[in-house]
Structure formats: structure tokens, C-alpha cells
């Protein structure tokens, strides 16, 4: 590294008290906004990716301010891998449900626009709100889970690389 040019140390807890006091409430609000963006993806701008990135932003915010060890939002390896798997599996299974029932992958079984699915089966996949959006909100949730843990894992991994480099 060039002389006099220091990279930010994410493992050191030397942030100002104002940042330490304000970061966690703001992070919780960011998480709530991200969840709102995910769940409103079918009727408002946004969706799974955008909401997931907002939630990941909250976690990245905490990691930068409090450091990796002092961060209040601690994502374990098992938690990350579980949510990533659940998100991917949910997306694939929703797609396969359409394939099995109608012959079209990712057919909107809950919305049932073309009337290819029995009403009883469509009711199972229907999203419980006034829009009758079918499986679209569930796909948003699956994508949101994947993006949230995926982006968080990238930043946590980068911060760990820095920690490893310091230990050597």
C-alpha cells in the first residue's frame, strides 16, 4: 500500500459517539423500509432486489460504524447459508408449481389469469391482499431474502479479509 494512504479499518471501533448512538436506530428504520419495499414490490416501485439491498445497506452501515466484532447485527455463517438456500428454493419451487400445474414455468398460479388452475389450488398460492397478485409478492420475498444475505455476506467477507491481513 502507498505511504500515507490508509484504508478504513473495519475491525477497529473508533467511530464518533454521535455515529454510534444514531446508527442502530437508523439501521432498524432502514430494515423496516427495506421490508416495506419488498412487500410493496407488486404495486409500488421497488421489489425484492431493491428491498434486499436496503436491508443489506443497514447491515453494512452497522459493520462500518461499529466494526465487525462490535456490530449489533451479527449474521452467522449458518444464518446466511440458510436464508440464501430458502430464498433460492422458494423461487424454484414457485416456478415448478406453475410447471407442474399448467406446463409453464413460473406461471402465476395464485393470480390464475388464464384460468388454467383449479380455484382451490389458486387460493393456496394467492397473496392475502386486495390486489390478488398471486405468486409475485412471494417471488419478491424470495429474491429479497437472497439479495439481503448475499450483499451482506460480500461485505462481511471483505471485512474478514482485512482482519486476516492484519493478523498475518
Amino acid at each position, binding site marked *: 500500500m502507498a505511504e500515507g494512504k490508509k484504508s478504513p479499518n473495519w475491525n477497529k471501533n473508533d467511530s464518533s459517539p454521535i455515529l454510534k448512538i444514531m446508527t442502530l436506530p437508523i439501521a432498524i428504520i432502514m430494515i423496516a423500509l427495506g421490508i416495506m419495499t419488498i412487500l410493496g414490490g407488486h404495486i409500488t416501485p421497488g421489489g425484492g432486489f431493491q428491498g434486499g439491498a436496503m436491508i443489506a445497506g443497514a447491515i453494512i452501515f452497522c459493520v462500518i460504524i461499529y466494526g465487525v466484532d462490535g456490530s449489533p447485527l451479527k449474521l*452467522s455463517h449458518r444464518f446466511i447459508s440458510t436464508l440464501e438456500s430458502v430464498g433460492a428454493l422458494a423461487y424454484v419451487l414457485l416456478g415448478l408449481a406453475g410447471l407442474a400445474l399448467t406446463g409453464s414455468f413460473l406461471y402465476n398460479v395464485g393470480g390464475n389469469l388464464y384460468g388454467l388452475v383449479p380455484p382451490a389450488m389458486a387460493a393456496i398460492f394467492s397473496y392475502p391482499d386486495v390486489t390478488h397478485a398471486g405468486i409475485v409478492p412471494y417471488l419478491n420475498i424470495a429474491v429479497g431474502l437472497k439479495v439481503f444475505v448475499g450483499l451482506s455476506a460480500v461485505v462481511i467477507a471483505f471485512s474478514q479479509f482485512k482482519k486476516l491481513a492484519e493478523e498475518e
Partner: protein
Amino acid sequence: MGFANIVIGPIIIALIFGFIIGTRLHLKEEKSFKFTAGAIVALIVGGFIMAFDIGQFAIYQDFPIATVFFAAIIGVLIGSALLGGRAKGDH
């Protein structure tokens, strides 16, 4: 408009989603800070004011506050209160 017309599905999903993330949230971290009960009350009040300013989703029009947003905050706090202190992070 009123309590009887609230769309309950997204609220429940927001509570569950917030709960899942809240299970990883430590409100009392010895190395950095302590999130007190007063701060939690302030967060809930602030969240309610924010929810009122945001308003409900575009075509729901069932209640004047963003119920999903507020439910997500409550879910995060409940998840943190029930499991946040016990979850062992290893990052």
C-alpha cells in the same frame, strides 16, 4: 377506512420478516453500545410518526399509516427481544 378494513396479510409477513432479521440483532453489545428501554420507546414513537408520513401502499387505502413499515419495526424489536441476545454470531 378503519380497523376492520386493514389488510392483514402483508402485516403478518412483515412481522415474520422483521422477526427473522431481529433474531440477529443484539440490542446490548458490550464492545460498542447499549440500546436502552427509553431508546426503544423513542424508536417506536419515531417509527409511528414515519409510518404516518409515509402513508399506506398505493391502492390499499385502508388505514392512514404504513402498517407494513410499522409492523416490520415491531417485528425486529420482538425478534431481538426474544432471540437477539442469545443468537451467537460468528462473523
